[in-house]
């Protein structure tokens, strides 16, 4: 018997002791196979067959040979790398300031750091045209520039960094919160400077989170459709190119292949992160009672960080303020007199799609949140067959451009054995499987901080894996759990390209309505929708925060005991 087989038998034996866990793993693997791998296989198969069913790789060859596709591919990668870098830096500054220092108005900073993901992204693109376009408020109105070109890579970098930094913030604040501050305090007591502590303790400890954030933003940027479509200008990207080929050239096959090409850099980044970063995690949460977390309050550190955050907040407020003001003016850009007409219009005709969107998001959020935590827990903590398959497949749908996910879902679920088109179920599935990775990545980074002996202790004392997960692990990764929930709720509410192909007459949602309003220049009505959506999402975040805080944190209990 060789080692592999032994190892395998050992895993089997271990799993036999916990049949429910085995069942869960089985269900997750099956669900990922059906809702991620199966559609992907269907669209790959579709792209390499001709109309009459014979297989051909001619389309792939044509795509690879085409110089403009290659250029577009490189454009996407370049943009993704830059946007990921900037967004992660901004996200880290926010996360560090909020979790590690004594600054005023933390609630405000937190709201600002999540705001950009809560509205459809093309809104930022529109704001940027209003602010920096030819008749832009800033370029023309204030600076008097008459011919500023707002279209192109510079705008894309700005808009993408701004729209995606919340993902980095969410991932990083989860992990920074999870780092036990006693390590930092110990260093401080030994006389190390704050700067030294940051570079030798805090920063290395947050590396797994940084890589997760980079990966997530990179993938988001690659598959982003609406921003490049609106303000990309002379900078063609692969996601937009795929859409153009599908809907403009009526060439679904080439479009599918272009989208599948997008998976390559995403996969490369994923593998890099997986093999390079694994082993870079350090355990800091050991279960031993720690002192109350001391936060940095030295003025020379807090003031610069606070200033940077405030400046970023100002930019965000400027962009969103433009949208909010737009909802209350007669005709955006022309007649700025105040009116409630747009809200009246939205509330009279648009309640049903809004209700649908909320219902679907409510259904998808807990499923996505818990599934994400379960997958992170299983892949970090348990040994089982199909672990690599699980963590990889959970990322795939996230990395594909939305329109292709939509098309692959029709190919997979419009026929027996899975006849799901036209139902709410298929939309919920898209939301769940498309929004999983943010929760998973956050939780994985946080889990790497936590000493497995905590969970082992729980198991040894007779708890099963589920009790351990809900009473020990989940409370410890609460931050990441919350981020995952918020992200899936928001993304389910605001999804555009992923669902455009699978919405049905019965299940139509609000974002498609907003898109149509843009088509007929009714920007202010669109803005009114967006304001209402922002209110709904803020309410949801508030409720989620309340619910997640109900999860009892063992750390807090431990601290209380120590104090008492």
């Amino acid at each position, binding site marked *: 018997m060789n080692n*592999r*087989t032994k190892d*395998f038998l050992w895993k089997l034996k271990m799993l036999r002791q916990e049949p429910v866990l085995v069942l869960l793993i*089985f269900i997750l*693997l*099956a669900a990922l*196979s*059906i809702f991620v791998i*199966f559609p992907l296989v269907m669209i790959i198969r*579709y792209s390499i067959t001709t*109309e009459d069913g014979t297989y051909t790789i001619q389309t792939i060859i044509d795509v690879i040979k085409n110089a*403009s596709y290659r250029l577009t591919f490189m454009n996407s990668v370049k943009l993704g790398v830059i946007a990921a870098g900037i967004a992660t830096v901004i996200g880290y500054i926010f996360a560090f300031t909020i979790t590690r220092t004594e600054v005023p108005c933390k609630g405000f900073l937190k709201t600002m750091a999540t705001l950009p993901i809560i509205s459809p992204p093309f809104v930022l693109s529109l704001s940027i045209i209003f602010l920096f*376009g*030819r*008749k832009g408020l800033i370029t023309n109105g204030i600076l008097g520039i008459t011919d500023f070109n707002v*279209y192109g890579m510079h705008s894309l970098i700005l808009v993408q960094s701004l729209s995606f930094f919340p993902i980095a913030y969410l991932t990083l604040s989860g992990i920074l919160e999870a780092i036990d501050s006693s390590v930092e305090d110990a260093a401080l007591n030994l006389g190390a400077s704050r700067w030294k502590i940051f570079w030798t303790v805090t920063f290395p400890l947050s590396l797994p989170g940084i890589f997760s954030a980079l990966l997530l933003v990179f993938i988001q940027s690659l598959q982003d459709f609406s921003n490049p479509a609106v303000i990309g*200008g*002379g900078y*063609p990207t692969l996601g*937009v190119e795929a*859409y*153009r*080929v*599908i*809907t*403009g*050239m*009526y*060439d*679904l096959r080439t479009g599918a292949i272009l989208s599948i090409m997008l998976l390559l850099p995403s996969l490369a980044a994923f593998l890099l992160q997986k093999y390079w970063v694994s082993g870079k995690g350090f355990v800091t949460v050991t279960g031993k009672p720690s002192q109350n977390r001391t936060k940095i309050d030295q003025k020379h550190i807090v003031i610069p960080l606070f200033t940077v955050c405030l400046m970023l907040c100002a930019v965000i407020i400027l962009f969103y303020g433009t949208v909010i003001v737009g909802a209350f003016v*007669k005709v955006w*850009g*022309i*007649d700025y007199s105040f009116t409630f007409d747009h809200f009246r219009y939205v509330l009279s005709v648009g309640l049903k799609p809004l209700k649908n969107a909320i219902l679907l998001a409510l259904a998808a959020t807990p499923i996505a949140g818990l599934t994400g935590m379960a997958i992170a827990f299983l892949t970090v903590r348990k040994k089982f*067959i*199909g672990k690599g*398959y699980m963590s990889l497949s959970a990322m795939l749908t996230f990395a594909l451009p939305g329109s292709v996910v939509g*098309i692959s879902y*029709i190919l997979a679920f*419009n*026929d*027996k*054995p*899975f*006849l799901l*088109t*036209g139902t709410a179920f298929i939309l919920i599935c898209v939301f769940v499987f498309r929004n999983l990775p943010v929760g998973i990545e956050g939780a994985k980074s946080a889990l790497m901080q936590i000493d497995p002996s905590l969970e082992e202790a729980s198991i040894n004392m007779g708890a099963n894996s589920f009790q351990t997960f809900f009473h020990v692990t989940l409370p410890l990764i609460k931050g990441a759990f919350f981020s995952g929930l918020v992200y899936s709720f928001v993304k389910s509410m605001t999804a555009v390209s992923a669902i455009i*192909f699978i919405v*049905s*007459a*019965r299940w*139509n949602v609000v974002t*498609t*309505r907003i898109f*149509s*309003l843009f*088509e*007929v*220049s*009714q920007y202010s009505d669109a803005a009114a929708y967006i304001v209402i959506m922002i209110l709904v999402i803020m309410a949801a975040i508030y409720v989620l925060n309340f619910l997640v805080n109900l999860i009892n944190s063992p750390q807090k209990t431990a601290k209380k005991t120590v104090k008492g």
Partner: protein
Amino acid sequence: MRNKFITTVAVALGVAFLMTGCTKKADQSAEGAAVEQSKELTMYCALPETEIPSYLEAFKKDTGITVNFVRLSAGEILSKIQVEKNNPQASIWYGGNCDSFIAAANKDLLEPYRSPELANIPENYQDPIGNWSPVYVGALAFAVDKDWFATKGLEYPHSWADLLKPEFEGQISMAHPGSSGTAYTILATMVQMLGEEEAMTYMGELNKNIRQYTKSGSAPPKNVGLGEAAIGLAFSHDCLKPAVQGYPVEVSFADDGTGYEIGAIALIKNGPEEEVESAKKFIDWVLSKKGQDVYSTNSSFRLPVNSNAVVPEGAINISDLPVIDYDFLWAGENRTRLIEKFTEVIAAKENLK
């Protein structure tokens, strides 16, 4: 290796298990399907969402049939019905350039139907086989920024040659022919007017004055409204919309001849059986005077094809415009080739804007 093999088998078994579970469900729903005609109709519609209710409400008043719709662009609808081929989720496709209907018919996705109302519609607008029916026409036009022209003291463009004037450098917005039916109509119009080689030279010259190639065909007039371009090339009904919204946009036409689009409607092949009769009723209604008169009340500015219908106020009747004898079938057949050539010409000049 063995480990991986076992994984694969386990996963495959899981999938197979779940598949059997779902098959039963699907069978049940198939049994439940009624053969009787439904009082509801499902439609994919490429018209702006703000316009759609005006047609559906009027239709319901006349027939009592409720129409449920999904709004998508014409290209999206084509992709959707292509992948839904085995089990179409709608019975009607309403709106969008006939160009994409021709492509759909070539892929065998449409069900021919000849409405009796076609008798009132000029034959040159019709598809000889009846795969699709014409519902409106729109001529290519120039949306111009009134304020920009006033400040510069320039005249509105009145011909395609005018667009090449050096004072318009970086001022013109049009969609990319590869992503927009509107822009392809412009390209095909130029080829039909000038011949292929000369048309490509023209597009290359025009490229100097182009500020941005947009994705959607209705975007250029909006860019003009927002001041992002001084001239936008699009169909007249799209050019007139920002003006209604209050933007300083006016419309001019090429006096030396212009192309036009035919908006179409069609039955989707193998659509829900219980909807077929109602779907035919809907097509009849949309082509009738009643259905076409709605254009004059809903500020869509679409030009009716039924010769008895009222022409919307503010819109210019197509018979008053110097439209060329645009060959739709030819345009549909040469589409891929012309777009590739266009992309080459433009890309050679300077990368895609």
